[in-house]
């Protein structure tokens, strides 16, 4: 016990030391994600710098603007532009040689440094949302820097406002307001004019396209044109393209039958009709127009026609004088998918066509193929869109293109070879679970067989098993020298993959895909598969057993995938039950855990056979219900919070929560017994009116409230997180001043449950070996716990809490907290959060021996607690923890926005050799000793014999 106390003390002295520098990217990994890139706002851009390298900029569907290094796909910077809830379109514009990119989302327009992502200026508009954003091609003669002014179109109900904002400060230079009731559509600019394009409702149906030309300096209207498009343009989506910043900006739309495409050079009345030359005999699914965005580019553009099975493209030239459009050549019809990207070098325009099998680059001037590469890795995923950058090297050209695939992967293909892939769909991870490969399953099964046999039979069985294992011996021996040398020579941290630190994490994303990440390999995606039959699904849970992971969406169906390959093993059809949650029940009757769907009103969809099994569910309307296993018709008990309160969260002890010691040894070596009950549930309910948060500790079998506490002055709009493990629970909230004694700030409260307030006392049940919540001998039923609580003021809100798990629960636990305001994940050591820390006095020697130290109300987050150290881990909603074969080590995996994983060693890695342990030195010492003995032994022997003679 004394030894344990000493260990405990040692654990406290060096709690959860931060990750060492050489372990970064070895023990932890981080996928910094942007989200699905928006096709219109993704571009290569060369920021002004000494290097000539260009960066890849985009704004995602999550309204995160960012820059990606095209060489390795690493994220250089990102900024979230969403300032209000609700869907909004994001725009990002930039110009070569310009040190700023301008982004807009909702009513928020901001300019960011292209290199570092630092804010240059920002504007909040409340009178509309940004419908379009352009950079003005030409700048004023008075402008000092080469930065470009931006023009934003704000759309409100029936009103369109065009604003020009200065490049350096974002101040509004002029404003043009159109309150004629038109639908504000886009802005475009030529070298001399700014065009405001709106859609005017025609009398009967459709829209007329109205073009208003504005003076770029004053913003005054110079002229107005209306194009008769009402027969073709039914909705704003019917307009295919409004060209931006080309020498001849275009408006392109197609008629409803998609027989002809109408092209108008903005600023002219003339509408050119192009007949679609459809030789494929199939219906055209999609028409896209690709045109260069640079002012000095040739006025060429490409129209891409895609049918269900193939695609072709036509290249057109615009005659600047007559504003006529002439077809130059055609890219042939090819089966399969195809996307086109435009890029330009000086005035030359290049089109890059990416098909399923090859990448082809053509110049806009002639149909001759400049270069062609076969695609090395042809993926089955369809490419949705692409941006490309063409570099000319003498006669030939090189191209790299960033392609967004149907799967949500963003892939850079350089000269036909896939350079990197960013799995942007992972940002929409809805559920995740640790999975184990089934290679351990065989051994576990064999051991189980041995356990059930007689002593003699088990012995024979084991000998046979070991003889069978001998067939692996030659391989093992062959591997041995390599293993020894690699462990001696490599400078790396010891490879611990065989100790269960290399696990698969199965993730289900919003777009119906399932991914497997390997925690031992920097979180690389080992496979991904489209598992949902629909485009999207709402996953409720992933349940894993060795070898198989089963995903449960909310429609009542389920998909089972093989953990190691991603093959879909089984699929059950959807039921008409809207699933609220999933219960996993270990019954004795079946070898595998049974999963039950819970309806939204909290009723289980089925009953299960378990004599002493109870089920606790929550309903959408905020009740907690308890059910008997055999009966899914009427609940056994129901917990309804007091009037005015609603249940927002319920949490229980993890299913696997091993407890190493059932008591806490005090300084005088007496024992405070822990109140351990696996059926506990912690229910959080809030009252928005009274600004209170209540926490109820329920017994899951009887529904009895074991402990309840209400916090006053709680801001219920701020995150309230809670977690539970062993004999303690913790929660945090924003507390406001409600009385003289209370304090204002984010609070973290920890409560420990004991069987009795007295040491060496096991409470009412005393030495009973088991207990029952229902058939208790005492009148009150289950005895109540003795609760010790303590509150801490913390510097930041906590949005989610979890607890580390280790194999046997001996290691100190960490309270894993997600900090949304600093985008990090921290692990607070439990000894720090001890409610028994002495208040207002120094600890006595007995308390000090126990590891207690003086209570301080303000708990500053130590830098060493940050598991994410310097990483910017944003958007985390859930943190998972899994034990490894090493007692000291716990795997931590966080998802929701970014993906982050690490290994937590709360009491230091006490069961593995550290890096400072030199195996070479040890071997050299042994060798030196051996040599010493070999040399000295004959000398000593000779001397002893001589002494015998002399005597």
């Amino acid at each position, binding site marked *: *016990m004394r030894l344990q106390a000493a260990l405990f003390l040692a654990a406290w002295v060096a709690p959860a030391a931060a990750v060492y520098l050489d372990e970064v990217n070895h023990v932890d990994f981080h996928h910094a994600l942007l989200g699905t890139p928006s096709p219109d706002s993704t571009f290569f851009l060369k920021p002004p710098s000494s290097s000539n390298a260009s960066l890849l900029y985009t704004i995602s569907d999550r309204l995160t603007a960012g820059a990606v290094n095209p060489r390795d796909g690493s994220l250089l910077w990102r900024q979230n532009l969403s300032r209000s809830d609700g869907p909004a379109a994001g725009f990002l514009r930039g110009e070569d040689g310009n040190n700023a990119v301008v982004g807009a989302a909702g009513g928020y327009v901001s300019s960011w440094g292209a290199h570092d992502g630092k804010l240059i200026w920002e504007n909040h508009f409340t009178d509309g949302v940004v419908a379009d954003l352009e950079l003005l091609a030409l700048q004023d003669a008075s402008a000092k820097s080469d930065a470009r002014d931006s023009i934003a179109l704000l759309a409100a109900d029936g009103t369109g406002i065009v604003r020009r904002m200065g490049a350096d400060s974002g101040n509004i230079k002029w404003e043009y307001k159109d309150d004629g009731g038109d639908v504000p559509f886009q802005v475009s600019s030529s070298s001399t004019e700014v065009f405001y394009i709106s859609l005017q409702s025609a009398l009967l149906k459709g829209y007329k396209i109205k073009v208003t030309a504005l003076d770029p300096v004053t913003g005054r209207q110079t002229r107005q044109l209306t194009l008769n498009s009402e027969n073709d343009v039914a909705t704003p989506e019917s307009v295919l393209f409004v060209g931006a910043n080309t020498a001849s900006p275009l408006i392109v739309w197609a008629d409803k039958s998609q027989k002809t495409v109408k092209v108008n050079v903005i600023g002219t009345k003339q509408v050119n009709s192009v007949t679609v030359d459809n030789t494929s005999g199939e219906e055209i699914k999609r028409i896209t127009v690709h045109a260069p965005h640079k002012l000095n580019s040739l006025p060429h553009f490409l129209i891409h026609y895609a049918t269900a099975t193939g695609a072709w493209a036509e290249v057109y030239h615009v005659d600047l004088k007559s504003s006529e459009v002439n077809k130059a050549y055609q890219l042939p019809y090819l089966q399969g998918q195809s996307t086109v990207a435009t890029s330009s070098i000086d005035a030359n325009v290049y089109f890059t066509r990416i098909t399923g099998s090859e990448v082809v680059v053509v110049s806009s001037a002639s149909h001759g193929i400049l270069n062609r590469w076969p695609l090395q890795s042809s993926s089955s995923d369809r490419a949705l869109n692409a941006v490309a950058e063409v570099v000319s090297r003498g006669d030939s050209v090189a191209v790299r293109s960033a392609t967004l695939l149907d799967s949500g992967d963003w892939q850079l293909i350089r000269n036909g070879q896939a350079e990197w892939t960013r799995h942007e769909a992972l940002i929409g991870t809805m559920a995740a679970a640790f999975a184990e490969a089934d290679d351990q399953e065989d051994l576990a099964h064999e051991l189980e067989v041995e356990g059930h046999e007689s002593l003699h039979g088990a012995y024979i069985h084991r000998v046979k098993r070991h003889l069978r294992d001998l067939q692996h011996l030659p391989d093992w021996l062959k591997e041995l020298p390599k293993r020894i040398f690699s462990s001696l020579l490599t400078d790396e941290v010891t490879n611990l993959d065989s100790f269960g630190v290399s696990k698969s994490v199965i993730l289900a994303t919003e777009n119906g895909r399932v991914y497997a990440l390997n925690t031992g390999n920097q979180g690389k995606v080992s496979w991904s598969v489209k598992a949902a039959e629909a485009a999207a699904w709402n996953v409720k849970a992933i349940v894993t057993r060795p070898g198989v992971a089963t995903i449960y969406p909310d429609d009542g169906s389920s998909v089972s995938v093989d953990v190691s390959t991603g093959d879909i093993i089984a699929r059950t059809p959807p039921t008409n039950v809207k699933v609220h949650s999933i219960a996993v029940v270990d019954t004795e009757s079946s070898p595998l855990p049974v999963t039950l769907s819970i309806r939204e009103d909290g009723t289980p969809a089925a009953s299960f056979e378990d004599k002493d099994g109870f089920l606790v569910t929550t309903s959408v309307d905020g009740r907690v219900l308890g059910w008997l296993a055999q009966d899914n018709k009427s609940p056994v008990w129901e917990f309804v919070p007091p009037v005015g309160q609603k249940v927002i969260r319920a949490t229980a002890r993890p299913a696997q929560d091993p407890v190493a010691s059932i008591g806490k040894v005090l300084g005088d070596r007496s024992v405070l017994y822990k109140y351990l009950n696996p059926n506990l549930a912690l229910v959080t309910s809030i009252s928005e009116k009274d600004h209170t948060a209540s926490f109820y500790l329920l017994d899951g079998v009887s529904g009895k409230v074991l402990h309840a506490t209400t916090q006053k002055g709680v801001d219920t709009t701020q995150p309230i997180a809670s977690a539970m493990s062993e004999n303690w629970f913790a929660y945090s909230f924003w507390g406001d001043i409600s009385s003289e004694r209370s304090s204002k700030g984010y609070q973290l409260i920890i409560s420990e449950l004991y069987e009795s307030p007295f040491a*060496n006392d096991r409470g009412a049940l005393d030495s009973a070996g088991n207990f029952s919540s229902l058939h208790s001998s005492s009148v009150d039923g289950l005895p109540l716990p003795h609760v010790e609580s303590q509150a801490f003021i913390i510097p930041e809100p906590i949005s989610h809490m979890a607890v580390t798990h280790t194999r046997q629960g001996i290691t100190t636990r960490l309270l894993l907290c997600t900090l949304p305001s600093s985008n990090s994940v921290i692990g607070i050591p439990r000894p720090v959060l001890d409610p028994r820390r002495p208040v207002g006095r120094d600890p006595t020697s007995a308390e000090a021996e126990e590891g207690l130290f003086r209570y301080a109300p303000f708990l500053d987050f130590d830098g060493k607690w940050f598991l994410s150290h310097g990483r910017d881990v944003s958007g985390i909603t859930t943190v998972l923890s899994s034990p490894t074969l090493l007692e000291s080590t716990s795997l931590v995996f966080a998802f929701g926005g970014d993906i982050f994983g690490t290994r937590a060693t709360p009491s230091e890695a006490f069961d593995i050799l550290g890096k400072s342990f030199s195996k070479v030195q040890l071997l050299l010492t042994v060798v030196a000793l051996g040599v010493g003995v070999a040399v000295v032994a004959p000398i000593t022997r000779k001397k002893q014999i001589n002494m015998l003679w002399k005597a």
Partner: protein
Amino acid sequence: MSQPLPPPPPPQWVVALNSPMPNPTKAASSIPDPPGFSSSKAVGKQREKQQKDQQPTTSKPEETDALKIKKAWEIAIAPSKQIPMNAIMMYMSGNSLQIFSIMMVFMLFKGPIQGLFNTNAAFAKFDTESTRAKLVGVKAVYVLMQLGLLALGIWKVNAMGLLPTTRSDWLAWESERQPLERAYFAFS
């Protein structure tokens, strides 16, 4: 056959050995012995004289027994003289688990236990027919004294916290109470 040869004359050194040392010359005897050298003849004479003096005292059996019992008492009491010294040493060495204190405690236990096992051996030379009855009491005191030393060791071990006397020492053998019912949670 020839006449057996007469035995050869003994060698010179045999003659010298057998014949007494010639008296030293007057001049030689006046040379003083080197410092630290004592004439064997003189010491031998003294020792003979001493032995002659003692021999008459040991001749009486009653006196011998009394002496033996006295000696036996001395041996029996001897361990008690170690107790104060050991107590101070144990007190000074502290209660922490260190190599020195562990070694000292080990020695503290080793001495009395060995002593207890060798009780009869320790008094064997005083054990005669006549003293046997008297020696029983002496042996009992000896055993008590050794037990006193052992008690000191146990006190020390207890102070070091090595004796399982508190509740926490038996905590590992206490088991968690098992619930008869099991609740499964389905929280979303």
